[in-house]
């Protein structure tokens, strides 16, 4: 091997980097990625206590919008800055999206991998759990979990994750079944690779794109779901959430106050639109069959 000259070009990039680069090349998707990055920065700033306090009054009650950063979208009924509350709502939305996705995607992927690879009773048990969870309508499962764990941010993340791992598990399982009998798996096995190596080093890299594409849908559903669930009284109880903001804005509407609603809706629209555009593009790049 030493006689082979070292490759002159750079180390080949991983599939994930390739996909990101392919996304970045599309101007529309690049703009959406920058928007999502901005939301991430807002969330990080929020956790680093760099955002202004959204609970503090900055002026009179229901002040109209003015060219001052704190009162750009006016103030609410307690004189708090609507803009600060929209930003704090963004922090909540990003948190719920990320936590839910990090709970659901690895869980669903691992179960799908195990069910597809081992088959037999492992598959039977995982499929039973799957069939039970998909049989309970999402909204009822979320209601039940928020009863068991108490209402709030944590239980909402768990509840949304509990309803979203199932689709990932089913898709990954299907892909694993397709790959299990492939020549490359047989080759690895004949070279003496064990189950763990075959599952994680051979099959997983070939099926992970399914999980990545679906995770963008999970993220989107979590962000959208939080608003509705909070409005229904199942989600965030205090603090800041776009759902609470919209509920408050509906009171303001009867007094002809539009700014809080427009601000919240715009903030939600930008994030949801960008996430769905990135998700669609990701599907084009990673899995042409699904497009």
């Amino acid at each position, binding site marked *: 091997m030493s006689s082979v000259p070292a490759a002159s070009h750079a180390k080949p990039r991983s599939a994930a980097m390739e996909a990101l680069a392919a996304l970045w090349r599309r101007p529309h998707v690049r703009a959406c990625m920058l928007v999502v990055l901005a939301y991430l920065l807002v969330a990080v700033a929020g956790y680093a206590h760099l955002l202004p306090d959204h609970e503090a009054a900055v002026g009179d009650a229901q002040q109209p919008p003015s060219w001052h950063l704190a009162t750009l979208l006016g103030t609410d009924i307690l004189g708090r800055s609507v803009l600060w509350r929209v930003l704090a709502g963004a922090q909540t939305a990003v948190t719920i999206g990320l936590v839910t996705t990090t709970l659901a995607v690895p869980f669903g992927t691992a179960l799908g991998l195990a069910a597809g690879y081992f088959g037999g009773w492992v598959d039977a048990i995982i499929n039973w759990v799957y069939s039970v969870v998909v049989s309970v309508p999402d909204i*009822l499962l979320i209601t039940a979990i928020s009863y068991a764990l108490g209402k709030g941010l944590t239980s909402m993340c768990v509840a949304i994750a509990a309803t979203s791992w199932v689709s990932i598990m089913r898709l990954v399982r299907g892909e694993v079944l397709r790959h299990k009998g492939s020549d490359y798996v047989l080759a690895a096995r004949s070279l003496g690779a064990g189950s763990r190596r075959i599952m994680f080093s051979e099959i997983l890299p070939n099926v992970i794109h399914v999980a990545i594409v679906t995770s963008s849908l999970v993220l989107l559903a979590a962000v959208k779901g939080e608003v509705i669930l909070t409005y229904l009284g199942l989600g965030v109880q205090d603090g800041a959430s776009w759902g609470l903001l919209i509920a408050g804005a509906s009171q303001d509407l009867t007094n002809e106050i539009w700014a809080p609603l427009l601000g919240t809706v715009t903030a939600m629209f930008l994030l949801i639109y960008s996430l769905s555009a990135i998700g669609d593009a990701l599907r084009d790049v990673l899995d042409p069959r699904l497009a």
Partner: protein
Amino acid sequence: MGAYVVRRLLQAIPTVFGVALLTFLLFNAFGPDPVRTALGNHATAEAIANLRHQWGLDQSLPLQFVDFLRQIVTFDYGRSYVTGDDLGTQLKSGALVSLSVTVPPFVFGAIVNVSIALFITRHRDGIVDRAARALFIGAMSVSALVYVLALQYLLAFKLDWFPINGYESGWAAVKYLALPWLIQLLLLMGPDIRLYRTLFLADIDADWVRTARSKGAGEGRVLFRHVLPNAWIPIITQNVTTIPFLILGSFLMERFFSIPGIGNLTIDALSRGDLPVLKAVTVLGALALVLFNLVNDLLYAVADPRVRLS
């Protein structure tokens, strides 16, 4: 076919058992004590013990679970903790109200959306198609909550075309339901038309469609005689799986417009710790889902004989 039905019914038993177990664990084992919720923090030990006995919560968990299974099999879910009403009648009237909220937009929406999707497919990649696609992507990025709020404000509060919220039984309900119907119809349009368009486009270059074209069939004939008939199965499947959700009603609409359907019943029960209601709704919702999935599979088996044997 009979053997297939029996086999699928038997397969549903472990699933329903699992649903019962999950429901029981979440509400009875992990959830907060409903007796405490009902009596508050200052109740005497005797009052707590009495109520716990009255609700059967003094038995061991396995015994309570067996009792729950008996309720599921006999469809006798007992009485609400809060109102003391028989759950059978309460849920039945709630389900009827929920159906009256969801069925009209569901039926009307299916007809309208299939027609629009056909029209868009006819003019695919033209200006109508591209405009519609852009519009739907934008429209679907706005939360459903915003549509409800904005339309209520505009059509009920500002223009006074509809009552703001409320409900009356009988035909008078139509007055209150018209706005929720309209909103649901609009909310269904984006996702449904996109789905139907994809289904139609999947077949648009299929061999049999190409053959039809080469025989001189016009675009209209191709769509109605060759593409649409093949798309019926996925369209029907999609709609059959929606039926259980029609019974559950729209939580958002019922909450927003104060309509006393299953959704409102459930959310009220959640805040009051009314376990029998919550457990009954969860299990019945799951049973409906299992049942209609079965119906779906049977429809598939009728349409495609290969399914029956595998």
